[in-house]
């Protein structure tokens, strides 16, 4: 990063439209969704805006600067590391009173700041009219009304940002009630420079008073014992006077100030009429209907992908088969043919077998995320999650897992308790991700019928529940219970969904597809050199005697560790048949056993890597061991039953 490139940080509460705004400005790089805390990765982009180079940072949404989730802790450290030249505080105008609490906290911090008053259209619909000029006057910083999803107000926002970068807009923190302010001031004066955070004595004093024990107070006690006793006295004076813990007094001060600012800057005409989202919410959160709809969504998810993917797959397989016959006609059976055939199998398999299921699945996931359904599913499924020792907040990582396990593991950062994070992370690899859904649909649904595939899904979910139950026996720690914000429903924009699908697809084409192609070519080479027989013989005790599968499938399981779809594509190649003629060499029961084994037997390489990074080596290996045990047990069970 160049020294003279100014850093601009986007900061706001979850669902304030921060990532959408960031996307609109920094060029479609951050993923957005309508669930508290899903922009778990922060995104750095160096962007050229109107001829000026900016280092733009999108941090995950946070409710306050007193972090309680691991995802939120990232924010504080980033704020101090980056020393932003400007903070763009994104505020949801439709819940202005609550949103301003973070704004006030940011003002305390004292970095130059402007406010993007976002979703003003939604606020107007709710009958809330915010006067930006008035709010600007009250806060002392620029306030620009925006509608990020439609690109409204972006130009004005950028102008304000450039103005502040050029002229260092001063930021003044707003004062609280006299008695609290007095204590804060007194403490701030006595702080030695070496412990002052962000060059702001008042901010440091406030954080010392309100933060819990783990935060910098311990350092203070060691470095300056006399200051520690002073801090304790100040806290005690506040607590005696207000009859509440100091952190609560400060939270209440901000709350009241925020409400006052909201009242003074806004006119509210709250009619009695119900808006569409409230009416929809009444149905999808209904104690009975809600569950029915959840089930319907699950079924729709499944059938839609199958009904779109199946015919497409059939359509694409024909030309692929003809191409291969053509190739063998031209090239004979030598090395060149094997290489070319591997290439065609890899590319063609990806296009004809994987993409038809993968793309509709991505699109459907994007729809659920943007609508705000994940949080609602969390609410509905909380009871069931309790049965397996978790609560509703883990539902969103699980649902994300149906897309891909990797972001699902990352998103467990929204869970407060380390225990919940660990159990959820251990369970995620058992969720059938898009790769496994492809296998299930392309093998089980295609050859045994959609009812079988659906049954497979239910079996899979039961298995996850059973493993969760088992794990929670070992990690007993009580969980504090569910506290989950339910964001307002948002009509998903086709543009945003298409963009998300495109981004995921791009990363598939870039990272996964080359692996599929390389895997196919390697298998071709091994076949040419007759080395595949050696590997297959080594695996034969498990594959042939244990699972009752044809011996040539042994090698495909090894490659399944790289990408699950690879097992599917290589299966056809290893058995030496066309997709359409699969049943001539393998029975329906064997297809089922193979799918069960491949689905569970080990987290794929990327999932394993992310587990290692997020939860440590031990958990990653525990997960791998657990998967292998479950895969063997489940496939033996299936073999016994059928």
């Amino acid at each position, binding site marked *: 990063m160049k020294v003279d490139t100014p850093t601009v940080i986007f900061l706001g509460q979850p669902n304030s439209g921060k990532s959408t705004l960031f996307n609109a400005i920094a060029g479609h790089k951050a993923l957005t969704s309508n669930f508290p805390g899903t922009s778990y990765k922060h995104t750095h982009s160096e962007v050229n805006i109107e001829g000026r180079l900016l280092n733009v940072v999108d941090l995950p949404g946070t*409710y*306050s600067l*007193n972090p*309680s989730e691991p995802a939120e802790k990232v924010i504080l450290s980033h704020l101090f590391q980056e020393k932003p030249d400007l903070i763009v505080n994104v505020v949801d105008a*439709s*819940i202005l*009173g*609550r949103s301003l*609490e973070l704004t006030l906290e940011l003002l305390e911090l004292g970095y130059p700041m402007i406010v993007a008053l976002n979703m003003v259209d939604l606020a107007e619909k*709710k009958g809330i009219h915010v006067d930006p000029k008035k709010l600007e006057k009250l806060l002392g910083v620029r306030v620009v009304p925006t509608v990020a999803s439609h690109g409204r107000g972006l130009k004005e926002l950028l102008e304000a940002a450039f103005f502040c970068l050029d002229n260092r807009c001063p930021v003044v923190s707003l004062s609280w009630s006299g008695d609290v302010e007095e204590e804060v001031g007194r403490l701030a004066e006595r702080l030695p420079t070496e412990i002052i955070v962000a060059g702001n004595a008042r901010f440091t004093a406030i954080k010392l008073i309100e933060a*819990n024990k783990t935060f910098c107070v311990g350092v203070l006690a060691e470095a300056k014992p006399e200051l520690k006793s002073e801090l304790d006295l100040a806290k005690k004076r506040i607590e005696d006077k207000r009859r509440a*813990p100091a*952190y*609560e007094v400060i*939270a*209440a001060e901000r*709350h009241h100030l925020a*409400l006052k600012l909201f009242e003074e800057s806004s006119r509210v005409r709250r009619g009695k009429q119900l808006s569409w989202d409230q009416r929809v919410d*009444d149905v999808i*959160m*209904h*104690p*009975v209907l*809600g*569950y029915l709809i959840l089930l319907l969504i699950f079924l729709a998810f499944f059938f839609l992908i199958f009904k779109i993917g199946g015919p497409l797959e059939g359509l694409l397989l024909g030309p692929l088969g003809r191409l291969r016959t053509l190739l063998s006609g031209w090239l004979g059976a030598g090395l060149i043919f094997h290489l070319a055939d591997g290439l065609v199998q890899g590319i063609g398999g990806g296009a004809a077998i994987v993409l038809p299921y993968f793309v509709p699945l991505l699109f459907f996931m994007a729809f659920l995320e943007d609508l705000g359904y994940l*949080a609602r599913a*969390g*609410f*509905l*499924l*909380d*009871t069931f999650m309790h049965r397996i020792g978790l*609560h*509703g907040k883990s539902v969103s990582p699980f649902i994300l897992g149906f897309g891909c396990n990797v972001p699902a593991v990352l998103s467990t950062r929204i869970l*407060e308790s380390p225990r919940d994070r660990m159990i959820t992370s251990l369970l995620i690899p058992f969720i059938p991700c898009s790769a496994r859904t492809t296998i299930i649909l392309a093998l089980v649904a295609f050859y045994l019928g959609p009812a079988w595939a659906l049954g497979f899904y239910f079996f899979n979910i039961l298995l996850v529940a059973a493993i969760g139950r088992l794990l929670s026996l070992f990690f007993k720690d009580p969980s*504090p*219970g*569910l*506290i*989950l*914000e*339910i*964001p*307002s429903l948002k009509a998903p924009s086709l543009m945003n969904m298409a963009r998300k699908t495109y981004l995921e697809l791009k990363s598939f084409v870039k990272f996964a597809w080359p692996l599929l192609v390389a895997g196919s070519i390697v298998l071709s080479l091994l076949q040419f050199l007759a080395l595949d027989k050696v590997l297959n013989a080594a695996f034969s005790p498990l594959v042939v005697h244990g699972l009752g599968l044809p011996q040539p499938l042994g090698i495909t399981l090894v490659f399944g560790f790289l990408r699950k779809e690879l097992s599917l594509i290589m299966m056809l190649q290893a058995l030496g048949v066309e997709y359409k003629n699969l049943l001539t060499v393998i029975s329906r029961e064997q297809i089922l056993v193979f799918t069960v084994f491949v689905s569970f037997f080990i987290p794929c390489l990327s999932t394993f890597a992310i587990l290692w990074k997020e939860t440590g080596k031990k958990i990653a290996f525990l997960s791998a061991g657990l998967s292998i045990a479950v895969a063997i047990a489940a496939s033996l069970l299936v073999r016994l039953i059928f």
Partner: protein
Amino acid sequence: MTRLSEAPHGRQLRIVDIQGGEGVRRRLFALGFHKDDLVEVNSQGILRGPLLIKNLTADTSVALGRGIAHRIMVDIVPDEG
């Protein structure tokens, strides 16, 4: 005064006291739940599932587990007129 977990649905309630551990209380404050806020119980999950609480003061909704709702004390606000 009654517990939020036992309060009637669809009635305006005023938060009188938020009890419970420091972690839970801090989280609730951060989400915009404070003493004196007006709230309403909107729905609940089956089998003693969580409660869906609408905060009328902040105009936000939060799903709360029973255990947490049990420790929030509320007064029923009398209907106007």
